[in-house]
């Protein structure tokens, strides 16, 4: 827990991702940030950020090595917020297919992460997103672009809404076809783009997430 009155966020350090930038951007956005691979600290934090860069299978191997999936499962079971970024989002889905190899993901959501169908890949640069009105992450940042760099994405969302729960908020973007740019589903949120590299718009998105941590 934070000692400074700011929400405490752990950036999960498991050997993947640009954790340095993510940590600094979260600090800028108002969080009390700890970068660690320690499971107890990751469990206890107000929010857990799961970064991820590189191949889906490599990220899964690295996450598994520190039993990261277990931490994420236990947090979500207790309603404790988790934010996945880039491949840290992709591994939340059931499967990832890269270079023809199918790797099992954490399976928090059904669906497959597949190659983008655009002529120019990686999808690299600043793109617009189509966020639902109810989105908390995109509250007040409707007409901004965010920085993407990826060759794979989840391109379908099929969870039937549970009438007892707030429906998942799914944000879409387009690069040679529609793909999922962000998801807010109960305590689990994720972005395919890099908020920590998306300038002021990205910082504002992180502020929205941080503000939601203690509701």
């Amino acid at each position, binding site marked *: 827990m934070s000692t400074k009155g700011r929400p405490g966020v752990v950036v999960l350090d498991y050997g993947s991702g640009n954790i*340095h*930038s993510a940590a*600094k951007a979260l600090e800028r956005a108002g969080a009390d940030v700890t970068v660690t691979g320690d499971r107890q600290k990751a469990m206890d934090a107000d929010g857990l950020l799961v970064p991820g860069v590189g191949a889906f299978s490599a990220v899964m191997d690295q996450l598994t090595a520190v039993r990261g999936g277990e931490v994420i499962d236990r947090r979500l079971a207790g309603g404790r917020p988790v934010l996945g970024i880039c491949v840290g989002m992709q591994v939340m889905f059931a499967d990832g297919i890269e270079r023809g190899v199918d790797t099992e993901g954490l399976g928090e959501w059904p669906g497959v992460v597949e190659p983008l169908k655009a002529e120019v890949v990686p999808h690299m640069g600043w793109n617009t997103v189509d966020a639902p009105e109810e989105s908390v992450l995109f509250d007040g940042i409707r007409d901004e672009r965010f920085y993407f760099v990826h060759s794979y994405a989840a391109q379908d969302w099929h969870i039937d809404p549970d009438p007892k729960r707030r429906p998942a908020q799914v944000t879409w973007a387009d690069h040679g076809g529609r793909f999922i740019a962000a998801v807010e589903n109960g305590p689990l949120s994720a972005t395919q783009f*890099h908020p920590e590299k998306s300038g002021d718009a990205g910082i504002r998105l992180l502020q929205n997430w941080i503000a939601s941590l203690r509701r």
Partner: protein
Amino acid sequence: MSLAVRVIPCLDVAAGRVVKGVNFENLRDAGDPVELAALYAAQGADELTFLDVTATVDDRATVYEMVQKTAEQVFIPLTVGGGVRSADDVAKLLASGADKVGVNSAAIARPPLLNEIADRFGAQVLVLSLDVKRTAVPGRTPSGFVVTTHGGRRETELDALDWAREAIERGAGELLVNSIDADGTKDGFDLELVGLMRELSTVPVIASGGAGKVEHFGQAIAAGADAVLAASVFHLREMTVGDVKDELRREGVDVR
């Protein structure tokens, strides 16, 4: 709306300091990469590229510190090129906060380096940087464009288009195509070269070399560039990144 064209200022750095041609009177320290990076980010730069021109290995360590300080304060993507010789060099740069790494002469000397980097970190971190010119030797390369080293002073035997294809095959996620012929002329980008690269490339193409007027950037984009890079016109305050984007917007190009 779709993916925006990127405008990328490039800074030459040595021993952690910006060298060459920077003219900002309002900066406390025109040699401070962090301060310049923040200024360009505020102007709307979509990415920043640092080209490390450090001569000695001892000074190389300063680049890591510089990248780290910049990444702590400027929340847009950073590419670092110059002197990258191994996948371990890439690991250090990424750990310091770089998002992408430019590889040039080390890949010419040993092409499998590209595979090693892409396999370990993914294609999205790997920018192949090419210094290209029209060869002075008739018939040296099929396309007439040759890859050079030593800042364009030495021609290799590599056809620029073949090398670009091979690099993509080996895992390069982006091409930074610098025209030695156009570089420094301020007469505009080498549009023929940009067009040929766009035609063959399945990865994003950054056009570099020759920018002198705001109109030049739209020409490179019309020729097929996904991003445009310039150095001196920004450093010498002949135009801002914002000026370039205003012009592109006027021309109907999607920019951030």
